[in-house]
C-alpha cells in the first residue's frame, strides 16, 4: 500500500519534472493525487480539503511557475506545510513549581491510556522524578489489576482504592503523593465515548477535583475520519494540553494526527511504539509528515530537489561564463535570486567563483537594495554592454536610482572584477573544482 502510493505520486511527479513550467491543470492533478494520499492516510476529508486549497494557492503562485522542477517544489510545499501543521518543535510535560505535578490521561476505550501511564511513569523516573500512578479507572473490568501488574513489573508506585469512585481515587492519590514525597501523579482514567454524558461529566469532575497541570488525550494512530469529532469533543470538555499518538509501531499512516492538530491545535507530545513499557518516543513532526505522505524519504527527495535546482542554475551560469557572457543583467538575476534565497553569505557561496572573489567584491545586505536600484535604472543595452556606460550615463543612473555616482562607479568596478575573475576561471578549466565547491555550499 505504501509503495503503491509512493509510486502513484512518483508517476505524477515524473510527468511534471522537466516540463519547465507548471500549468494550473497539472498542478491540480498532483494535488488531487496528494489529496487522495491524505485521505488514504486517514486525514479528515475536510481538513485535507482546506490543506489542499491552501497548497494550491501557493502552487499556482509565481515561485512554482518560475521554477525549473515544479513537481518537486510542490511536494516541498506540501511537506513543509505538513510539518508546520504538525508542530515544529518537541513540547514536553509542564511541571508545577509546587509538587506534585498532576497529569491526567484521558481518551476513548482501548486507545492505550493505561499502557501510556506506565510508560510515562517509567520515562519520568528515568529523568529523576518520583511518579505515583493513580488507578482512577473504576469501570473497566480489571483496570486496577492491570495498572497494579504494570507497576509491579516495572517498579512503579501505584495508588489504588477499590470500591471508591474515580474522583475520590484521584484526589486521595494526590494527597498520598504529597505525604509520600512523590513529585508527579499520573491519573489513569477509564476509556469513555465523547457522547457518553455521564462519563464525560465524571472526567470533568476528576479534573475539577485534582486540577491537573497537564491533561493528555490519547489517540490510536489507526483512527479514521472520526478523529476530529472525538478530539474536538474531549477538548471542549477537558481542554487538554497535549495528545499522545499510540500504536505507531504498526503500518497505520497516522493521518489522525493532522486532523487533531488542525482541529484543536494542541501539541502531540509523545508517540507509543509498542506494548512494552519502554516503547515511548518523542514526537517528530517531520517523520510523521513523511509517513503520512507515504514517501518514506521525502526529506532527502526535497533536499535533492533543492540541490538539483541550484545545480541547474549553476550549469546555465557556467555556460555563460565560458562564453564570457556574464552581463549586468545576469548580475541582477543573481541578486534577485539572492534576495529570494535568504542568508547572503551562503548564497554568495553558490555563485561560481564567488569564494575566490576579493573581499571588497562582497556585498552587504543593505547594499543589495542599492545595487538592484542601480541596475534597474540602466537601459537593456547598458546592462548587456556595461563598457558603454560613460560619465553622462553614470550620472543619469545615479539620479534614477537615488545613489551617488561613486556608488555607480563602485558597482561597475565590482562587476568588472567579477567578470575578469570569471574569465580566467572559465579559461583555466577549473570549473569542475568550482562546481564541486558549489555543491558543498548548496
Amino acid at each position, binding site marked *: *500500500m505504501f509503495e503503491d502510493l509512493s509510486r502513484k505520486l512518483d508517476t505524477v511527479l515524473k510527468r511534471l519534472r522537466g516540463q519547465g513550467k507548471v500549468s494550473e491543470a497539472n498542478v491540480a492533478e498532483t494535488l488531487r493525487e496528494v489529496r*487522495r494520499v491524505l*485521505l*488514504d*492516510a*486517514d486525514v479528515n*476529508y*475536510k*481538513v485535507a480539503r*482546506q*490543506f489542499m486549497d*491552501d497548497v494550491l494557492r501557493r502552487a499556482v503562485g509565481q515561485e512554482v511557475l518560475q521554477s525549473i522542477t515544479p513537481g518537486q517544489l510542490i511536494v516541498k510545499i506540501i511537506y*513543509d*506545510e505538513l*510539518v*508546520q*501543521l504538525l508542530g515544529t518543535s518537541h513540547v514536553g510535560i509542564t511541571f508545577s513549581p509546587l509538587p506534585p505535578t498532576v497529569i491526567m490521561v484521558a481518551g*476513548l*476505550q*482501548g*486507545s*492505550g491510556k493505561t499502557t501510556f501511564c506506565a510508560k510515562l511513569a517509567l520515562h519520568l523516573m528515568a529523568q529523576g522524578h518520583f511518579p505515583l500512578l493513580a488507578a482512577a479507572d473504576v*469501570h*473497566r*473490568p*480489571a483496570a486496577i*489489576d*492491570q495498572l*497494579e*501488574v*504494570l507497576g509491579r*513489573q516495572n517498579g512503579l508506585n501505584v495508588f489504588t482504592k477499590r470500591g471508591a469512585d474515580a474522583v475520590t481515587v484521584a484526589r486521595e492519590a494526590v494527597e498520598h503523593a504529597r505525604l509520600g514525597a512523590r513529585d508527579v501523579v499520573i491519573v489513569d482514567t477509564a476509556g469513555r*465515548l*465523547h*457522547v457518553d454524558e455521564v462519563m464525560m461529566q465524571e472526567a470533568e469532575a476528576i479534573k475539577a477535583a485534582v486540577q491537573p497541570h497537564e491533561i493528555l488525550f490519547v489517540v*490510536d494512530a*489507526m*483512527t*479514521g*475520519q*472520526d*478523529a*476530529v*469529532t*472525538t478530539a*474536538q469533543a474531549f477538548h471542549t470538555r477537558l481542554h487538554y494540553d497535549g495528545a499522545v499518538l499510540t*500504536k505507531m*509501531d*504498526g*503500518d*497505520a*499512516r497516522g*493521518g*489522525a494526527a493532522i486532523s487533531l*492538530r*488542525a*482541529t*484543536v*491545535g494542541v501539541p502531540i507530545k509523545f508517540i507509543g511504539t509498542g*506494548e512494552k513499557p519502554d516503547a515511548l518516543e518523542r514526537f517528530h513532526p517531520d517523520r510523521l509528515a513523511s509517513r503520512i505522505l507515504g514517501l518514506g524519504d521525502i526529506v532527502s527527495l526535497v533536499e535533492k530537489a533543492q540541490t538539483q535546482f541550484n545545480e541547474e542554475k549553476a550549469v546555465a551560469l557556467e555556460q555563460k561564463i565560458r562564453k564570457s557572457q556574464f552581463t549586468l543583467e545576469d548580475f541582477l538575476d543573481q541578486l534577485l535570486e539572492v534576495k529570494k534565497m535568504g542568508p547572503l553569505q551562503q548564497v554568495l557561496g553558490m555563485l561560481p567563483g564567488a569564494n575566490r572573489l576579493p573581499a571588497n567584491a562582497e556585498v552587504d545586505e543593505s547594499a543589495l537594495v542599492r545595487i538592484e536600484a542601480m541596475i534597474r535604472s540602466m537601459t537593456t543595452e547598458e546592462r548587456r554592454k556595461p563598457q558603454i556606460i560613460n560619465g553622462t550615463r553614470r550620472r543619469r543612473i545615479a539620479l534614477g536610482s537615488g545613489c551617488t555616482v561613486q556608488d555607480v562607479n563602485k558597482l561597475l568596478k565590482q562587476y568588472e572584477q567579477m567578470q575578469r575573475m570569471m574569465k580566467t576561471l572559465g579559461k583555466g578549466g577549473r570549473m569542475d573544482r568550482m562546481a564541486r565547491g558549489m555543491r558543498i555550499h548548496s
Partner: protein
Amino acid sequence: MGILDKIGIGRLREGLSRTRSGLLSAVTRIITGGQRIDEQMLENLEDTLIAADVGAGTAADIMQALRDRSHTAMSADASALLPMLKEEIGKRLAAATVSAVEPFSLPATRPYVIMVVGINGVGKTTTIGKLAYRFTAQGHRVMIAAADTFRAAANEQLEIWAKRAGAEIIQQKQGADPAAVAFDAVSAAAARGIDVVIIDTAGRLHTRTNLMEELRKIHRVVGKHTPAAPHEVLLVIDASTGQNGLQQAKQFGATASVTGLVLTKLDGTAKGGIVLAIARELGYPVRYIGVGERLEDLQQFDPQQFVEAMFEA
C-alpha cells in the same frame, strides 16, 4: 505559520458543527426531491461516504456506479438518488451479510470452537464476554480459553467477564504458551461435554510476523485436537478504525483464516465504514456489532440499519 493559522481553529470548528447539519440538509434536500441531480449533490454524498471511513477508493467506486445509473435511468429527479446509493452500498455489503451460520444460534458440532483475533484494544475480550452470555442465556455450556497470556491482567479481566456470562474459564499464568491454553480448553471441553469454546487471544498488530505466526500455531493446534476447529475465526474491528482496517483484515485473514468480522464501539459517532471496503475486497461477513460495554451490548449486524446510520448526522 502554516495552514493552522490560515484554516483558523475557529473556522474549522464551525465547519465541523456544520458537517452534521450540512450532511443532514444535503440528504434531506435529496430525499425531498423535486430537484435535479447536480455535481454538488454527488460530491456531498461522496463526502458522506468518506466521512464514514469507507475509503476514497470504495467511495469513488460507488459514486461511479451512481453516476452511470443516474445517466442511463435519466432520473434527473434527485429523490431517486438516495435509494440508489443505498442499493449500491447494499450490493457491496452483500458478501458481508451472507454467512453459513446464524448469528446467535449454535450449529450441531460439539464442541463448537470460536477463535477471536484482532489488533490491540479493539474489544476482543469484551466481545467474548458478551458472546458467551448470548450462548449461556440459551442454555448452552460455554468455556472461555484465556489464550492472551501476554497482556497485564488479561486473565483477571476475562475472569470477570466469564463470571458475568456464567461461562467456565481455562487459564494459565502470564507468559504461558497460548497454543497450550487453547489446546487444554478444547480437550477439557470435549471431555466435559461443553457446547462452545471461545478462545481469547492477545491483541497484536498485523505487522508483527512472529506474533501472527503464533496465531497460526494456535489455529493449527486446535485443529489437531478437533478437526475443522476452530469453526469460526472472528476478527474484531473497532468502528473508529480508518483505512488501516483493510490491511488488518488482509493479514489476519491470511494467517488466521478469518471467517467473519465483529464491528465494535458503534455506540460512538464513528460509522465503521471500513467494513464496506473489507467486504468489497475480501468478502468477510460482519457477524456482530458491539454497541456498549455491558453484557447485552452485542447485536446481529443489520446491513440496512448500517447503511441508514451512515447517512445520519
